[in-house]
């Protein structure tokens, strides 16, 4: 039937055309790309090139801003050193695959391994294998079950992150002479130990000033969940004095909810330290007044540590001849006065 053929032809053309137009909408190329990366400064006695070191790097999939920044920082740091060769593996959230990747790096006989495990316990055994094979292991953030599996560990401090957020908010409340403030909390995934530690630190710090956590919700580290939970929280609390949001990735949604509710009577403190939040802190035009770091710059430091381990150097300002076994990064509070000096560690969420 000719009319049917014509209809088919028209539908077919429409479908093909629509597909072509949609395909044109997939680009994400920004005209002003070129984000900053946190790198350790190339100064001091240790900066002079030394023995060539091959560093193997294994991390989970870069599936959110923070994790993406970890991998990017590690690469940027390695490029800073003329005496470092970095062997990276494809990021994966499958522990079996990550174990396989680390085994490959061991077989390749790299000098030092930097491992950010998807699950610290699951990768402990392969960390021990590497150590037994004579490879020094730098364990990043998610700690192995035993010190036998790593030479050095560098990671963040979730408890102190909560403490510093609590202290900052308590100070602000006192400065404003608010005696009985309503302090809200938008936590991350509640079943994770890191969320529990952050909340505990926050609670403990507020208690020192005689304050307590009022309305509290738990989101999923995603903008959408942050928006939903915060919308409800704001409805339940007709007046807030301060709000701590654990994570700047979900913070985009938290801010959308605050804006949607037309609220501005409180101060908000973020967590992790995204570039986005730092820009808002610098602009100082909304509720965001500070963010507490859990900075992916630790990945840059891990590469720097690995290089020094490979060259048998120590940290020159310390009396010890060797690299310390445990390094906990400090969760500094970034606020308007100091934000300029932290912009380099802000990551794209």
């Amino acid at each position: 039937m000719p009319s049917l053929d014509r209809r088919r032809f028209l539908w077919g053309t429409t479908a093909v055309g629509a597909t072509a137009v949609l395909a044109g909408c997939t680009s994400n190329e920004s005209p002003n790309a070129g984000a900053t990366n946190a790198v350790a400064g190339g100064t001091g006695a240790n900066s002079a090139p030394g023995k060539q070191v091959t560093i193997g790097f294994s991390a989970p999939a870069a599936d959110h801003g923070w994790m993406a920044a970890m991998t990017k920082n590690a690469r940027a740091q390695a490029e800073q050193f003329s005496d470092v060769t970095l062997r990276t593996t494809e990021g994966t959230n499958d522990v079996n695959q990550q174990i396989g990747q680390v085994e490959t790096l061991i077989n390749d006989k790299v000098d030092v391994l930097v491992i950010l495990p998807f699950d610290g316990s699951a990768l402990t055994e392969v960390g021990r294998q590497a150590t037994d094979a004579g490879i020094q292991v730098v364990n990043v953030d998610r700690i192995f079950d035993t010190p036998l599996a790593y030479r050095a560990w560098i990671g963040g401090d979730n408890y102190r992150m909560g403490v510093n957020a609590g202290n900052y908010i308590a100070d602000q409340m006192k400065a404003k002479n608010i005696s009985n403030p309503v302090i809200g909390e938008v936590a991350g995934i509640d079943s994770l130990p890191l969320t529990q530690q952050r909340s505990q630190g926050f609670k403990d710090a507020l208690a020192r000033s005689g304050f307590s956590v009022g309305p509290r919700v738990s989101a999923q580290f995603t903008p959408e969940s942050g928006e939903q939970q915060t919308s409800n929280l704001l409805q339940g609390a007709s007046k807030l004095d301060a709000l701590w949001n654990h994570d700047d990735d979900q913070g985009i949604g938290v801010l959308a909810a605050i804006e949607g509710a037309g609220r501005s009577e409180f101060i908000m403190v973020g967590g992790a330290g995204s570039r986005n939040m730092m820009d808002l802190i610098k602009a100082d035009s909304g509720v965001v007044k500070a963010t507490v770091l859990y900075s992916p710059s630790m990945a840059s430091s891990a590469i720097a540590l690995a290089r020094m381990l490979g060259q048998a150097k120590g940290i020159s300002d310390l009396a010890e001849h060797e690299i310390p076994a445990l390094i906990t990064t400090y969760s500094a509070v970034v606020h308007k006065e100091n934000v300029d000096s932290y912009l380099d560690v802000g990551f794209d969420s």
Partner: protein
Amino acid sequence: MTQKSSIPVLTADTGDHQAARPAPPGERDRRRGGFPFDVRLAGLVGVLVVLCLVGYVTRPDSFLTEANISTMLRLAAAIGVVSVGMTFVIISGGIDLSVGSMVALCSVWMTTLATQSFGPFVMVLCGLAVGLGCGLINGVLISYGKIVPFIATLAMYASARGLAERLSGRRTQVVSETGFTTFFRGDLLGVPVLIWMLALVFAIGWTVLNRTTFGRRTFAVGGNAEAARLAGIDVKRHTAIVYGIAGLCCGIAAIMVVARTTSGASTNGLFYELDAIAAVVIGGTLLTGGRGSLVGTLVGVLIFTVLNSIFTQNNLDTDIQNIAKGVIIVAAVLLQSTRLRRRVRAT
């Protein structure tokens, strides 16, 4: 609510009282001079009212205020629209596990820098087109490819979110196109645009399902596909279109999510498929197809939204909330199946 499902195909064999499949309630009630409206739906509305009362009693100052009702409806908007599409699919005898992933893909595709550079109109169109396209792919695979819905949409569930991650580089894409956010986050005649959208989608969905040939055919296909085919319905094309509708609803929901979060991300729409199926099922739609109600679905969505609000407003732990959610689902389905069994026995 009377289900005006005077399905021509099924009326042909209503003489067969021993049929394993019970006739649609509308038929039977009319024949037995039964209730003018669905008792179960009344029970469901009762649950909603009780929940609202609990909310009002525990937080009299803030629960039933205009602001909170508006917030709850806006929170229900995206999942509500997805559930409308899901109701169509389930009534037609299928299932769609990919709705959450499709929402994620639409939200990412419509917020890429390239799409944003064309302005808000193209963003909306892009979201709708991607949703419709994915839905039709589901539908064609199921009807013409003869893949069971569970598997076909499971494949879409995995690949749509994968593509969303690929397009976004797993980043959160912030919307800088202010025209889009200003309109969809704003009000129209004093009511938020998102609530208008939910109402409109629901009204159109209800009309199509209950007042058109297309709707009657959807019931027929879900009730007995073979009988529908013999009665001259193009079951394959109909099935494909039903999944297309579900996809289109995901596109609309993605627009809502992007407006609410001012961003698109591959993590959007997590567990929407479960929330939507739960709302549809407690709304009284049979998972086996052939019977269902959009009003029930809407009440189901609202029950979960109100529950969530009550828990947050009273600062209670989310774990208890999940338990309560589970209890409501089981209770609703138990009620549904015992009533059904009684009906079958009665014939």
